[in-house]
């Protein structure tokens, strides 16, 4: 069980992120009990047997920064959870991947940021379409995470459009002419 932020509030969550080490036999790997988020390679290798789980909301898939979200384009209606991994918080590929999943491919299910997920990036994650944020186990106490909710609202009217608000400020609000 881990504490996550979902739709702007704290939740206790029972999904397990499955990480495989290089060279591991994906076909033979035993998945933990309960709800699992599997790496893309494992999903592709065992898609037929995992599809029912995906549709039932007990199997999700996570993408690494190097992975093309288009690979999942055909499965987006079946998957109820997709995660994007941030190996380091300063590695920003996940923001583009999330944007593509939402804005280009129309993915509407849960989109979760996993890995090195820190509160000072919460605002950017949600703008790019992540609706759940899972910091590393033990990174924040529940109280710290509670306090971190404030970071979701760092800026009230951002300039540019993004997934959360597609319209840029100049379309969203009437900006007065210079006096």
């Amino acid at each position, binding site marked *: 069980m881990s504490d996550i932020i979902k739709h702007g509030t704290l939740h206790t969550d029972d999904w397990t992120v499955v990480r495989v080490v290089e060279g591991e036999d994906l076909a033979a790997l035993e998945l933990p009990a309960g709800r699992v988020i599997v790496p893309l390679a494992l999903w592709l290798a065992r898609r037929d047997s995992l599809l029912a789980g995906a549709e039932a909301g007990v199997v999700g898939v996570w993408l690494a920064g190097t992975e093309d979200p288009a690979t999942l384009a055909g499965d987006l209606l079946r998957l109820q959870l997709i995660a994007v991994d941030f190996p380091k918080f300063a590695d920003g590929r996940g923001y583009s991947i999330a944007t593509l999943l939402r804005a280009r491919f129309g993915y509407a299910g849960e989109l979760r940021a996993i890995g090195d997920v820190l509160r000072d990036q919460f605002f950017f994650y949600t*703008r790019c379409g992540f609706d759940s944020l899972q910091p590393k186990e033990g990174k924040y106490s529940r109280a710290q995470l509670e306090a971190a909710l404030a970071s979701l609202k760092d800026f009230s009217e951002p300039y540019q459009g993004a997934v959360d608000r597609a319209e*840029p400020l100049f379309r969203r609000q009437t900006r007065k002419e210079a006096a």
Partner: protein
Amino acid sequence: MYQYDEYDQRIVDERVAQFRDQTRRYLAGELSEDEFRPLRLQNGLYIQRHAPMLRIAVPYGNLRAKQVRMLAHIARTYDRGYGHFTTRQNLQFNWPKLEDVPEILAQLATVQMHAIQTSGNCIRNVTSDPFAGVAGDEQIDPRPWCEIVRQWSTFHPEFAYLPRKFKIAVNGATDDRAVIQVHDIGLDLKRDASGNIGFRVLVGGGLGRTPILGEEIAAFVPWQDILSYCEAVLRVYNLHGRRDNAYKARIKILVKALGIDAFRAQVEAEFAHLKGGPATLTEAEVARVARHFVDPVRETLPAENAAYAAQLAGNKAFAAWARRNVRAHKFAGYASVVLSLKQTGIAPGDITADQLDHVADLAERYSFGEVRVTHEQNLVLADVRQSELFAVWESARDAGLATPNIGLLTDIIACPGGDFCALANAKSIPIANAIQARFDDLDYLHDIGEIEINISGCMNACGHHHVGHIGVLGVDKNGEEWYQVTVGGDQGNDTALGKVIGPSFAAAEMPDVVSSLIRTYTEHRHPDERFIDTVRRVGVEPFKTRVYAEREQRKQAHV
């Protein structure tokens, strides 16, 4: 100049609150050094050799008098009474305390200023022509477009953690004074055959360890689409730029690796999805921003002011200053004045708090209250009546701001270098000062004519050494400070990268090296030929030969 509305102000105020909390958490040990670093960098805060350094954004080099006074106030209150203008038109303070930075940012916010994205791996402060709006060769005013790009890039959520820093420059004149060819994206304002405004887009330029000139990725992107087009470029870069090696992470390396055609194909594929989307600019928005940059109400004046002509004829020192530091203006009877921050013995680009106040006074009195920063690290009063040039000169001279050397040898561009910068291999400022001291004879300086010497303390090339007619780069040889010299670099329409002339030099040799280069030039030049043109005509060889021959003679003389 652009004035904030309630939305702009709120964003800057919210940034202050955000950074105040981040600094508090860092000082309380809740944020690690690694976690805090990109946050402070995206607020312009470096940890330097002696103290933190705070880089304040001067968007495309535009300042109002009130803002200049605030910079003076901050210099006095939180620093040691001076600041440093950079080659990216920003201002740096070298001695603020980390704990004071949130308060400094709060004070800046009261005059519509900030330090947002002046460092870090994000889209940096957009730069442009310091003579925008007043230059005779301007086709389209770049400032509204700079402001539009500034707003779009501020806290862009998708591009806050790019592989590396990302710089955009905009040019709207026949002569490119924004050096767009050495930027990650260079935007060149154009009109198509039917007179519609758009941009020729260059991509993949940059100095640093691997200097590369940008290549054309699009011949004409209509203005409506420019943000979508930039978004496409940035997305391809964000997803595919290298993140394994900081030296190979700039977009120029990706463009080179793929080739411009393959890179263009990827951008076009992305752009096809974005074109026509919500980022498409509207006429209303462009008009809203452009209204901040309409011409001030100027008087109708004769093209030549008789009193000014008489002052020029009657005062040699004034005439010398006017010749170098006054530029023609598109409007009859007006001129632009360059205030030199290149007094011999002062670090290039440095300015004291008192001088800042003085500049603010000059701007208010003579130039519609505005000041521009040039990437050559000088200041500009863009809009001065010819009849008032003499008064401006006298006043600027009293404040040490009227060295008549703009474009001359002593108008040296130099980064802060080893005196301040933690990344430096070698010092830059003492080299600049030693060269200035060698060439302090004004008549000789004028005889040498236009020449640019650019000095960087390391490969990061903040002093733009590659594009200096003479470039000087600090290198480390077994823990000692040495200097590599290039010749033949240039900026503007003929941007070129200089060629290394040979083995590097000790600091003490540098004035002699420059003397040798200048002697070679004066010997080979045709009448009225600039240094760089002589280099182009005769090649680097004679310069190189003479520099090392004279170096050998000096050595012999010593034994």
